[in-house]
């Protein structure tokens, strides 16, 4: 049975290859999209938690964190409310975005942090000959190793940002916080009209539960006895928070699942329908030999399944290749979730079998004499 299917597929190699490729594209599309979503969220959540910060307090939380200003008094109020026994002194961060940096045309977050706080956030230089930290109040900049590689910029180069020339003075180790650091006071002066920050980073004392602290931050009141307008995000739940914020992309990926299945279905439907028409005489011969409808239908479905299995295999292969390639040529990350390999496999196979049902039914119900005399 599978001999006949394999022989038939082998005989029309080009068409089989195209069908396999069609299914592979659908599967790869799904896996790479899911992989990019997971990879990006994973990486950012990791980077945030690598700073050692327990809670990030924003005014308004957008995807990847907010840039809106909070007055300095907020930080003071939080510190007073919780007290030095429960939390370390807050780290104030000004967050901004840089659109173009060297050859990289992709938005990257920038943190304005005081020199002292760089160490508090676990920022380290990438190596001994990788420059130094910036001076407070200067137009100096740190970028991470990966951004350095992709932007083509290194220590000593200049970056145009907020209508100023910034000098890169150091390359920092990847994977901690953001990719671009500048001095806190310089960025604050450029972005805000009065003193403030866009993030207050909270580190809890040992044995203190960040969840509880986050709850108390929400209850904190300012000098006018009004509740602070803030949103604290606990680092440990960052991944879930991002996932929720990125739900729209997740939903989109789920639609792609349906698209991928439809591609499989249509590719197999068209291929196998053509095959059934082309092989009308062969079907007549099989019937004259006494083949049942079931036998004929199974022959068609076997052929489709072979195409689908190969298509899924090629698609998964392509996806892993993309998962390796994309991060090496760009700043994007791709982590293919293993359970999605399973889902994509099912999508390819189920789509294929659904697509084969109609051609199989057509083949099975052909009149043997008409089929035998078909030209």
């Amino acid at each position, binding site marked *: 049975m599978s001999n*006949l299917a394999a022989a038939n597929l082998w005989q029309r190699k080009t068409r089989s290859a195209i069908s396999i490729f069609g299914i592979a594209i659908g599967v790869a599309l799904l896996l790479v999209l899911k992989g990019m979503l997971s990879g990006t969220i994973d990486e950012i959540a990791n980077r945030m938690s690598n700073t050692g910060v327990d809670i990030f307090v924003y005014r308004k939380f957008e995807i990847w964190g907010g840039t809106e200003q909070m007055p300095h008094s907020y930080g003071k109020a939080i510190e007073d409310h919780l007290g030095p026994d429960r939390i370390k002194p807050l780290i104030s961060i000004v967050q901004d975005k840089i659109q173009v940096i060297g050859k990289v045309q992709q938005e990257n977050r920038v943190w304005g942090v005081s020199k002292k706080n760089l160490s508090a956030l676990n920022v380290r230089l990438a190596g001994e000959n990788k420059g130094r930290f910036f001076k407070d109040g200067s137009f100096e900049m740190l970028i991470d190793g990966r951004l350095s590689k992709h932007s083509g910029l290194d220590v000593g180069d200049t970056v145009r940002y907020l209508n100023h020339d910034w000098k890169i003075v150091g390359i920092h180790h990847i994977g901690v916080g953001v990719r671009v650091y500048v001095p806190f006071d310089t960025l604050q002066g450029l972005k805000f009209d009065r003193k403030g920050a866009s993030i207050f980073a909270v580190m809890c004392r040992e044995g203190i539960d960040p969840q509880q602290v986050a709850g108390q931050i929400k209850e904190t009141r300012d000098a006018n006895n009004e509740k602070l307008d803030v949103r604290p995000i606990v680092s440990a739940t960052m991944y879930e928070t991002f996932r929720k914020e990125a739900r729209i992309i997740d939903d989109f990926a789920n639609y792609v699942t349906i698209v991928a299945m439809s591609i499989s279905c249509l590719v197999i439907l068209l291929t196998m329908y053509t095959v059934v028409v082309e092989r009308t005489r062969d079907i007549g011969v099989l019937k004259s030999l006494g083949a049942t409808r079931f036998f004929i239908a199974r022959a068609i479905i076997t052929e489709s399944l072979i195409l689908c299995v190969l298509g899924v295999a090629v698609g998964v292969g392509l996806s892993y290749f993309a998962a390796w390639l994309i991060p090496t040529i760009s700043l994007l990350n791709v982590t293919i979730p293993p359970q999605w390999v399973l889902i994509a496999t099912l999508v390819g196979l189920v789509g294929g079998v659904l697509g084969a049902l109609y051609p199989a039914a057509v083949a099975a119900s052909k009149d043997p004499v008409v089929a035998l005399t078909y030209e």
Partner: protein
Amino acid sequence: MPILKTIDLKKSYKIGSRWEPALTGVDMEVEEGEFVAIVGPSGCGKSTLLHLLGGLHRASGGRIFFDGDELTALPDFGLAAIRREKIGFVFQRFNLLPTLSARGNIEIAMKIRGLPTDDKVVEILKYMGLGDRMHHKPREMSIGEQQRVAIARAIVNKPKLLMADEPTGNLDSDNSNRILAEFKRLNEEHGQTILMITHNSEAAAVASRTLRMRDGRIIED
């Protein structure tokens, strides 16, 4: 007790809105071990008759009895079972599966019939003088060889009845003679019952009995 018997067998085809009769009432009997040739002018209904007897088509009227079953009373899957177990077909155009080798063509027939694909495949190909053509695809074989593969495929399950529709129609005289000799050998050495349609009087002469058809009925036995 004949192995095959028809009573007032009729078949009409619908052409547009009219029904055109192709068989107008065929009564015939074939005994086990006979080699029967059916001859007659083109369009007289020979192929139609063969298709009905082989359970490939349904009659419009009349009855067919074959080896203890009434074909005209069987459902589709019953007819498929009869074809699988008791009938072998040989066609004018060989009708081998083009993607399979000689051996593959016979093996698939055995698989359909639920037989194990064992040494019998080799045996039957050798019997048909095709021992060195086993791995050839149909297009890599001469037409005579192709037709011998088709015969091997038809007889591999030792059918009760071998049916052939102008088996020599596409062959030159040398190949025709060889095929006819094979049929005769099968009939004489193995008692194979054969029903063969032919245009060719030489071919008919090989048979032990000739039925002459005209206008959808048998006019001479």
